[in-house]
């Protein structure tokens, strides 16, 4: 099965007055058709930037400076602005983190959804309204025609997120990028939304990139998982391998340090979570070699010198860790001062 989306060695750098910060410095992942890939990482891991990069929506002062993005066999970085616009919202759609901020507060729901439909499919107002209503019904909103006339501030968080999902589905995309779609929602509403996403993905044969920091969420929703830390990929595997046989020390530490609601802490005399010492590195001055080495319990001198490259340990399971046998590459200096933005990759503000 060929991949729907392949991201290889993606690099997104922030260009600021005080220097260059490599927010994404080599993230790889691949999504197959009709599959959900979970992109897991904490703040500063680059996961949101990576998902924005797929749609070439990286905001200045950040720019895509390296790597390749292939979607349905086409090189996304080689497309011109018009072709990219044709792709966004139609073939690849995005659901953002905070539904309150991703809906235009001064337009009615019907106007916002209709605008997208008429832009991509050139249909009449009436037809757009009907299609929008149909989609609201699909996402479980009762009385859709009434809702279409309402404005975002009149709706609850859960309702808004359903509408954002409906908006993403308007033109039958092949791939949905969901960036922390339930983080701001209550737990019981979150369960509803996740069920809905799962059901829709199945029904409409879509693939999904689910970006999250919540291991529980990706355990439930994803088929495969890529773990990222400080802008680089640590490990990629199917969901069972990640949770039951994690290889990368960061993956292990992440799983161990998360409290679990199904664990019997009451019977422990001195309950303590296994912690990861230290903190997430400053992007502007990342550690040399393996980015995780200052906090890694298994780090050696080699880890501070060489940058680990992904290595396949089993079909579909790759890990970037010198201690697991990955090959290492010596890094050139510390700061990325010689980044010459390749002309063809300059993306500028989103068209």
């Amino acid at each position, binding site marked *: 099965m060929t991949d729907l989306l392949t991201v290889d060695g993606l690099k997104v750098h922030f260009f600021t007055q005080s220097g260059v910060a490599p927010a994404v410095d080599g993230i790889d992942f691949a999504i197959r058709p009709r599959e959900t890939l979970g992109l897991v990482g904490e703040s500063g891991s680059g996961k949101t930037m990576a998902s924005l990069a797929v749609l070439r929506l990286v905001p200045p002062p950040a720019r895509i400076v390296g790597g390749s993005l292939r979607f349905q066999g086409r090189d996304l970085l080689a497309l011109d602005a018009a072709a990219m616009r044709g792709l966004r919202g139609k073939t690849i759609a995005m659901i953002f983190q905070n539904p309150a901020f991703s809906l235009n507060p001064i337009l009615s729901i019907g106007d916002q959804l209709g605008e997208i439909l008429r832009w991509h499919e050139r249909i009449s107002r009436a037809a757009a309204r009907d299609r929008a209503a149909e989609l609201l019904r699909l996402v479980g909103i009762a009385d859709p025609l009434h809702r279409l006339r309402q404005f975002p501030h009149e709706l609850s968080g859960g309702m808004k997120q359903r509408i954002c999902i409906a908006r993403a589905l308007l033109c039958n995309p092949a791939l949905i990028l969901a960036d922390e779609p339930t983080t701001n929602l209550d737990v*019981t509403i979150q369960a509803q939304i996740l069920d809905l996403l799962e059901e829709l993905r199945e029904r409409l044969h879509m693939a999904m990139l689910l970006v999250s920091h919540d291991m529980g969420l990706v355990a439930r929703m994803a088929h495969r998982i890529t773990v990222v830390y400080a802008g680089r990929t640590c490990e990629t595997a199917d969901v069972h391998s990640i949770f039951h046989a994690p290889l990368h020390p960061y993956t292990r530490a992440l799983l161990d340090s998360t*409290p679990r609601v199904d664990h019997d802490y*009451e019977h422990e005399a001195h309950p303590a979570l296994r912690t990861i010492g230290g903190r997430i590195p400053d992007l502007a001055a990342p550690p040399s070699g393996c980015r995780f080495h200052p906090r890694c319990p298994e780090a050696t001198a080699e880890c501070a010198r060489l940058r680990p490259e992904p290595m396949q340990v089993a079909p579909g399971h790759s890990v970037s860790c010198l201690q697991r046998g990955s090959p290492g590459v010596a890094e050139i200096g510390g700061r990325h001062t010689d980044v010459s933005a390749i002309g063809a990759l300059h993306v500028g503000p989103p068209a």
Partner: protein
Amino acid sequence: MTNLVRVEHLLKRYPVRRRGILGGRTVGQISAVDDVSFSVAAGEALALVGESGCGKTTTARSMLHLVPATSGQVWFDGTEVLSVFRGNDRPAVLRARRALQYMFQDPYLSLNPRWTIGQTLREPFRVHRHAPPAEWNDRIAALLERVGLEPAHAWRYPHEFSGGQRQRVGVARALAVEPRFLVLDEPVSSLDVSVRAQILNLLVELRAALGLTYLYISHDLASVRFIANRVAVMYLGSIVEIAPAEILFRYPLHHYTNALLSAVPVPDPDARPTRVVLRGEPPSPMHLPPGCRFHTRCPAALPQCRTTPPALVPSGDGRLLACHNPR
């Protein structure tokens, strides 16, 4: 185990006003905290859980008079503290403020950005004077070390620290007055996953070492299970179930508790608990349904649930439950 803190019939109502030229009229009210009563034993960690709008934060803030309660009483070690906070007896107010402290959720807003950490930590000493000024610097250094920071950090400003470190300062500030009761208001919700464990471990360790009593507020049930001895579940301003943690997590009797627990994602792809997914959304707090507030979404609602609100009564195993038709 004696009860250190007892909350009795706590009520907090907010009037809903329509704006006019000079003030506006009241058109309704929201009972953010609706007749809440519970107690916390000395040395225990009681968790207050619920989703947004359930009143858990308002309850905690009302207990310490950070928000003036509409009515109700809070007893601490034999003294009713709300009347103390409202009163003019400054020494008594200071005593109460020393005994009951609060740790805030947001690491970025809970420290004065224009003060150094040292200044922030000196403030409790300046207000209470429970140690001679000559000792303050040493005490501050000791506090910083206790929470895992370095004494030299006292010279720095909050913006130079990470979220996790700022939360540690927040703990240090609360501990500066040597409290006995500490309210922890979602202390780790704003932190990264890898840092949460550090702070949670710290909080557990401090409770054991200093003999503190905690009221832990959170919507994250996993961290609640880790830190709490007993759990109280709130929905739309009332407590629906209180039970020892082990019992609540294994055998929830209230349907909302059950739905809440089954909605929490577990980091295990093979775990597929019997999931109860609630229908619909919580009703508007201004127009609460009659009878049991939860009946509109409850999978087991009986006719009487629509008319009579259930009372919070003991139901064995140290549990209190408010339900006509428990599981």
